[in-house]
């Protein structure tokens, strides 16, 4: 069956990690994997730029890491499970990191989750939202 990498394009506020994105994000994600060891986490936090320069990442990817711009990291091929190694190295939780990708503060996001999470209504389709 012919793969359809564009079937996901209409989902609002969502980046699907396809095999194509995985190729683009390969070195970014491998950098993240390196943070599974405590020694590397320390080295990374001590001097982020030097550590990042050891990886064949694009400058855009490196800057996104330094800025903790997770949306930019997703856009350039990162996957959130890989990226979690970055915020884990600083002891942040998924909720803390994930909320930065929304238009809410962490407190607002937490409150939304406690109230039952984000309601799907209005979030099914970019076309429906007038974004496409």
């Amino acid at each position, binding site marked *: 069956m012919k*793969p359809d*990498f564009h*079937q*996901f394009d209409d*989902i*609002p*506020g*969502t*980046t*699907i*990690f*396809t*095999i194509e994105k*995985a190729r683009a*994000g*390969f070195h970014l*994600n*491998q950098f*993240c*994997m390196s*943070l*599974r*060891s*405590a020694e590397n*986490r320390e080295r990374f936090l001590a001097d982020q730029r030097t550590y990042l320069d050891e990886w064949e990442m694009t400058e855009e990817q490196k800057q996104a890491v330094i800025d903790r711009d*997770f*949306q930019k990291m*997703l856009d350039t091929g990162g*996957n*959130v*499970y*890989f990226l*979690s*190694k970055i915020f*884990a*190295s600083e*002891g942040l*939780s*998924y*909720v803390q990191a*994930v*909320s930065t*990708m*929304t*238009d809410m503060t962490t407190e607002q*996001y937490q409150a*939304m*989750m*406690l109230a*039952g*999470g*984000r309601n*799907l209504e209005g*979030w*099914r*389709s970019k076309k429906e939202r007038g974004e496409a």
Partner: protein
Amino acid sequence: MARISAGIATSHVPAVGAAIDMGRTDEDYWKPMFDGYEFSKQWMRENTPDVAIIVYNDHASYFGMEIMPTFAMGIADSFAICDEGYGPRPVPVVEGAPELATHLAASLILDDFDMTVLNVLEVDHGLTVPMSLMFGTPDKWPTKVIPLPVNVVMYPQPSGERCLSIGKAIRRAVEQFDGDLDVQVWGTGGMSHQIQGARAGLINLPWDKQFMDDLINEPEVLQYKPHLEYMVEAGSEGVELIMWLIMRGALGEHVDEVYRFNHVPASNTSVGHLILTPKEHS
């Protein structure tokens, strides 16, 4: 003859593991969720299997992007606990079931499932959080485990049909094993959740409950649900639920529902949990 005695479905939220490891399960935030697993821990004490085949996905914990198998199976004597960035969870090492695993991996390959065989594997929260939920915090896990990692992270994931179908093949293979073993199959992950992008925090509890009903009653229809629907309706990470189809496929045509539990939220996730047993003579 070995037999499949039950199927367990449960979410495998990392924060749940952290709550257990830090002794925070009695806090207001967590208590309602953990209370929902009290029945299951009791039931599990009375129905401890010899081997649990745990279907889960690795979350960039053991597998990097060098190599990404669609279906893999751990056949080793034991499986160490991954460091997912916070240090390894302080849980016992997971003991393998190499004889059954070897038989199973070989059976599946002979049935034209293109398995990747793992003699080395470290397991992450996808596998250990369900164990903590079902067994609590023992010094040693009371059951042996065959890890069955599935790629649900990178599109294309295996189809729903393929997942149900490998479940059925697991059932056949377990029944052909020469050895008197009580085997459970666990499907983990889900339910609705999205942990990335502006749409993060999505929860769709009505959809989750319908999915449970369909999994129990209409798996032959449910298998054709396109992955796009999981992603739209249950969030980008909701597609993990295809792993529940593998568990369901292993239980035969008809099942009894022993227990069901839903809770929102745990961290970013809608928590769902089922205990199912194969209906006799099904």
